[in-house]
């Protein structure tokens, strides 16, 4: 049985209502768009890398609470970190969302997102932001 409180935890509702880093970076140094074909939702990630660090990270998108909170939490967590750390956390987050790793490996602030695994129809929503960050980071090296 699904418990809605599992998905819509206070922290997720809060990040949905007041998403952090919800803006464009001008000029966009690097950006990537992830798209959920099921619902048409998109998350667009903007990223600025300098000296091996993600100096700025932001997102836009008219998406559901799960996608919005995921992007908000992720940008908050990753901003200012080294690109290596960002890549590692992205890989871990993907692994948890794929059911290949326990939520415990994630930084604490991301752990609530793992509850989405109880709602298989919504896992892709949580995944949009991390996919876009990954792509944007890749694009920043090109």
């Amino acid at each position: 049985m699904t418990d809605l409180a599992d998905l819509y935890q206070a922290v997720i509702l809060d990040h949905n209502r007041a998403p952090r880093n919800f803006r464009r970076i001008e000029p966009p140094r690097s950006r990537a768009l992830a798209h959920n074909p099921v619902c048409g939702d998109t998350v667009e990630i903007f990223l600025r890398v300098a000296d091996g660090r993600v100096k700025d990270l932001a997102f836009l998108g008219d998406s559901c609470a799960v996608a919005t909170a995921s992007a908000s939490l992720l940008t908050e967590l990753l901003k200012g970190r080294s690109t290596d750390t960002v890549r590692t956390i992205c890989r871990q987050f993907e692994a948890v969302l794929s059911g290949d790793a326990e939520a415990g490996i994630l930084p604490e602030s991301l752990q609530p997102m793992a509850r989405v695994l109880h709602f298989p129809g919504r896992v892709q929503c949580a995944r949009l932001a991390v996919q876009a960050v990954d792509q944007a980071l890749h694009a920043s090296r090109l």
Partner: protein
Amino acid sequence: MSVTNPVSTRTTPALDAERIRQDFPILQREVHGKPLVYLDNGASAQRPACVIDAEGDCYRQYYANIHRGVHMLSQESTRAFEAVRGKAAGLLNAASEREIVFTRGTTESINLVAQSHVRPMLQPGDEILITGMEHHSNIVPWQLICEYTGAKLVVVPFSDAGELSLEDVASRITSRTRFISVMQVSNALGTINPAREIVQLARRHGLTILLDGAQAAPHMPVDVQDLDCDFYVFSAHKLYGPTGVGVLYGKYDLLKAMPPWQGGGDMIRSVTFERTEFAEPPARFEAGTPNIGGVIGLGAAIDYFQALDPAAVLAHETDLLRYAEAQMADIPGLRIIGTAADKAGILSFVMEDAHPHDIGTILDADGIAIRAGHHCAQPVMQRYGVPATARASFAAYNTRAEVDALIASLHKVHDLFGR
């Protein structure tokens, strides 16, 4: 109790939805511990036991390939399969069952007309007219043939309420227009379009026209002779029938003039390596072994739907629509997308603080199935500046009590997400 049926002036007896529900085994099940409230009928309806049994009986009792056996089973299967042509002709009031082609669904029916009737007559600069509210399956097949031929797609806009004006349609018919394709009922907005009047416009300009009846045929009486359309298409799975089966109705003279679309078995008269003679319609358009059990299931679905009385179904679903709309007005921040005066039982809506996807999840936890998404009508979403909508769509087995459950659950959404 009886209600006045808006289609004809005779009085239609009200449907007994509670009794109808007994015919649908799946409606007995629970979802997340709650009774299933199935309001995703626009995507696909559920099947009554008689449809499930008809398909099962075919496999259990007389299945064989059709049109090719001298043996008993093949003859029985062929007879059962071909009988459905007459049923479909009856449903649509087609002049003859030779005008009924079985396809895989609405999508394939439209592609068939695009490739076989329209594409051969297109020259660069010619125009195909559709409307801004079409389903992707009534957009993309036309784009494909435009790509091949250099023709272009002309799109008739619609009002904020989701209505087409005949003036807007008429003003977009030019000397280059070659074909018109319009949905009779919008899956994303619920609008019932003035199909008959649009066909008359086509007639006045000597154009042929297709009506996409995917959301109309399962919900109201349809009379293709009265509509006077050249082609009419629908899918079995939205009409309480199986998936993978659809109908293309076409006026016989037009079908007869059309080249085959796919080649293969069953659509030929004789084949040599030098030359193949094609069969007459409808066989010409039914290459290969069809979905035999599915078509037989469609036959049972048509019988079932006819016995309910399509006019009574429309009246029942309209009652649910009005009942739901009235209560939705009390939910803060809820906006109905598609407010045409003439609407079928489809309710598309958005909520100020809750994304349709979240609405769908919260309703699902209460056992309520709706659709959340773009409904394969992304241009409609763009028209209203929303990424998606939530959509409740009604069928004959839905009840006012289910609408009450929907409304209660929507209040929950507002409590959780509202500011």
